[in-house]
């Protein structure tokens, strides 16, 4: 057993909105190990790490570094003590160069001015030492996700980090980039760095980590040597039951085509974003779209929801050309939409659950008379949905912002599914929600499919997309790179090759599979 480097004892954290994120959590880190922290979304991993990095202060509990008690009141305290963090959402200033980002907060000076040359030199030096190639002069906004992550890691190393916290570093990476990252992490371990690796991808945890701490519901469920614990055991501790992501699906009988996209092309500032997309979804069909984020999926959804007009091609919903429709008119055709970001588009967090639940039907005759809303009927519907979706809430009048992420997302799904949609666009429908809520949402999607709804499912969760899709397409650089009619027979590795653009099906077979 190696020497204990950092220890967090009896940590409790209550946020100002009353959410208890951590309760009497214990965590200990040994020198020179890669230590996994695993748990579902909302289990309290991120909160714990934020406290280790000084971004949040524990409400109760102590932190010890090499046996002496420390207080971390800001990230600066943590950095000074050799703790660095790579956040899930990159902490970079887009308009700055790599070198400027690198030295931000510790700027080399020439007189009273910033020493640009020294900043670039420093960047090159560390870039070389840790084999993380970046161009110091390039603006960060022009970098790929993988490159940005390298900048983030370098940033921590330049600041003298001996402990490096990585918050779900592989979530945004392709399988190949992940491999590369693992190589670099091992190199760092050999150089004596200690790494905290937050993840809920058990295969990755098994592949690279030495020990694992499992969290659930804001508490620690146990610490194990990675060789002494199986994936099944970990997952049981994480969710308290074995994860079953197997759903019974009915046979394949599809109705007529609801959504038809033909040659949809779009470019922005001379750069191709969508390169002539063709696709079609039939009643009762779930079409999944996989792909690394930023390959045109977001723009495709924007084009389908009235926020973007393509340069060429047509989009037809139930036979109507929607290229000039706004979202209200598109919804009028029987389209529902679960947006990727429930905080930005999906909900109004200061408004009540009722108000959030009726936002797409408030204008219809069934819910108003002479302009007055039928508030009582609305409350009744809300109570019904709260029961049906097992939403944990005090009642219809509760502010939706007070709910957990999973319960909030259930409200979104309840709203979008309650209008008997003909087409449902589901963009990352279970991102950031707990397993229970995810399963409920998955079952709801399948229920809608049974009822004949056509579903476009866009997801970065390969497990989800492989299991739910009837047809699975892969987008790469604005094009359809592949289309499979039997997605459940695919492996994640195979899919990765298409997602990375290493393999590509020919045009004909894609079109055939798409029925486009």
């Amino acid at each position: 057993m190696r020497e204990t480097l950092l220890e967090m004892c009896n940590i409790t954290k209550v946020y100002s909105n009353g959410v208890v994120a951590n309760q009497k959590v214990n965590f200990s880190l040994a020198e020179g190990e890669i230590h996994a922290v695993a748990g579902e979304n909302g289990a309290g991993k991120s909160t714990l790490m934020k406290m280790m990095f000084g971004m949040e202060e524990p409400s109760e509990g102590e932190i010890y570094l090499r046996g002496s008690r420390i207080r971390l009141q800001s990230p600066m305290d943590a950095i000074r003590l050799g703790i660095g963090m790579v956040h899930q959402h990159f902490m970079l200033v887009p308009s700055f160069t790599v070198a400027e980002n690198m030295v931000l907060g510790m700027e080399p000076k020439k007189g009273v001015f910033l020493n640009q040359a020294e900043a670039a030199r420093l960047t090159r030096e560390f870039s070389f030492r840790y084999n993380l190639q970046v161009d110091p002069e390039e603006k960060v906004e022009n970098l790929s996700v993988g490159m940005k992550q390298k900048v983030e890691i370098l940033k921590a190393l330049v600041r003298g980090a001996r402990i490096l916290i990585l918050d779900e570093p592989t979530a945004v990476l392709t399988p190949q980039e992940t491999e590369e990252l693992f190589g670099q992490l091992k190199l760092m371990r050999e150089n004596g760095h200690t790494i905290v690796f937050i993840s809920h991808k058990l295969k990755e945890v098994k592949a690279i980590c030495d020990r694992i701490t499992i969290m659930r519901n804001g508490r620690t469920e146990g610490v194990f040597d990675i060789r002494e614990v199986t994936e099944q055991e970990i997952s049981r501790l994480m969710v308290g039951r074995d994860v079953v992501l197997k759903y019974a699906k009915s046979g394949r009988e599809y109705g007529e085509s609801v959504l038809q996209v033909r040659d949809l092309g779009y470019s922005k500032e001379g750069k191709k974003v969508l390169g002539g997309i063709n696709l079609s979804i039939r009643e009762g069909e779930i079409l999944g779209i996989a792909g690394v984020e930023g390959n045109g999926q977001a723009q495709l959804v924007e084009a389908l929801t009235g926020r973007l007009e393509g340069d060429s091609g047509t989009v037809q919903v139930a036979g109507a050309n929607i290229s000039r429709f706004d979202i209200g008119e598109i919804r009028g055709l029987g389209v529902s939409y679960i947006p990727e970001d429930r905080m930005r588009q999906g909900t109004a967090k200061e408004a009540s659950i009722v108000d959030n639940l009726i936002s797409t039907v408030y204008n219809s005759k069934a819910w108003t008379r002479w302009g007055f809303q039928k508030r009582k009927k609305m409350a009744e519907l809300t109570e019904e949905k709260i029961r049906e979706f097992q939403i944990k809430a005090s009642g219809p009048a509760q502010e939706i912002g007070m709910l957990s992420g999973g319960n909030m997302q259930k409200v979104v799904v309840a709203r979008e599914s309650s209008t008997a949609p003909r087409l449902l666009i589901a963009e990352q429908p279970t991102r950031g929600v707990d397993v229970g809520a995810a399963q409920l949402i998955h079952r709801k999607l399948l229920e809608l499919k049974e009822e004949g709804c056509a579903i476009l499912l866009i997801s970065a969760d390969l497990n989800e997309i492989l299991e739910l899709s009837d047809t699975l397409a892969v987008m790469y650089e604005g094009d359809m790179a592949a289309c499979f009619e039997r997605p459940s027979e695919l492996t994640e590795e195979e899919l990765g090759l298409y997602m990375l653009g290493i393999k590509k099906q020919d045009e004909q077979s894609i079109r055939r599979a798409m029925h486009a």
Partner: protein
Amino acid sequence: MLKSKHFELIRTAAVLLISLLLTFIMISFVSGSPLQTIGIFLYEPISSVSHAGNVVEMAIPLMFTGLALSLLFKMNMFNLGAEGIFYFSALVASAAAIHFSLNGFLHPIVAILLGGIVGALISGIPGFLKAKWNANELVTSLMFNSILYGVGQYILNYKLRDASAFQTASFKFEPTAVLDRIIPGTRIHTGLIIVLVCIVAGHYFMYKTKWGYELRMTGANREFAEYSGIKTGRVILYVHLLAGLIAGIGGSVEVLGMYSRFQWNALPGYGMDGALVAMLAKNNPLAVIGSALFLAYIRVGADMMSRYSDVPSELISIIQAVILLLVSADQFLKFWKNRMLLKEAKMNA
């Protein structure tokens, strides 16, 4: 037991207490006989029917502008145009009161409606600019205040001015246009009824109708509203029209209820005070009544103070600023709420 959900109420009360305390402290510094001055400030406004009447009279315009700004603030629009509109609509109503010949029932109605419609149209301009091109409504509305003031002074000086009056003032209103007094011993006029009707209507509008729903959702999260199919540009426009209408009616009612000539030679300030009324009321129409009365009470107190003691009434604008700073301070006393939450969480755990 005090619970975290009562927090907002407790905080508002604390803010008001702190501000009153601060008033006392400042009076003690500047007054020769502080205790007496404080006595005047606190007691005079309720010392007689006529003084209490002053409070209600003062509250009427504050309720109008407070209601108008509640609608705009609820939509997250920081438009302070009520100030200029209140002034300009009052001038329009005055012109109608001077030049039209109608009977005692129709005359004020026509003048007030005219003032209201002009207010709505003026308010529509920054609303349109915001909805269509996202032009910052705060800056445009403030610029409009200055423009309306300039144009208003021009109209007053060149078109409506009564040369025989002692100061810069318009001709006298036709007696038919002036609002009736409704409570003997005070100058409280029918405008009180009008404003209460407006407030109740505003309450129903905001919480019971689909248009109010559109307003609230646009304010809570404009992107969410758009995504739900609400045409937010249209909402922004009609809420601006409505707020302008209310402010315009307010200005017209004020001038016809309290004066016999138009004689404002500066912007009267009710629009700005309306911002404070709306904030104190948390943008809730019904709560506007209470917060306008409170503000009117301390302002009448300050008036009495400047009349009967050695402290000028401008003291109150310092106090108003402090109230506004604290009432809109999210974190003020928050530590205390956090402690309550921690306790409640522990009890539930």
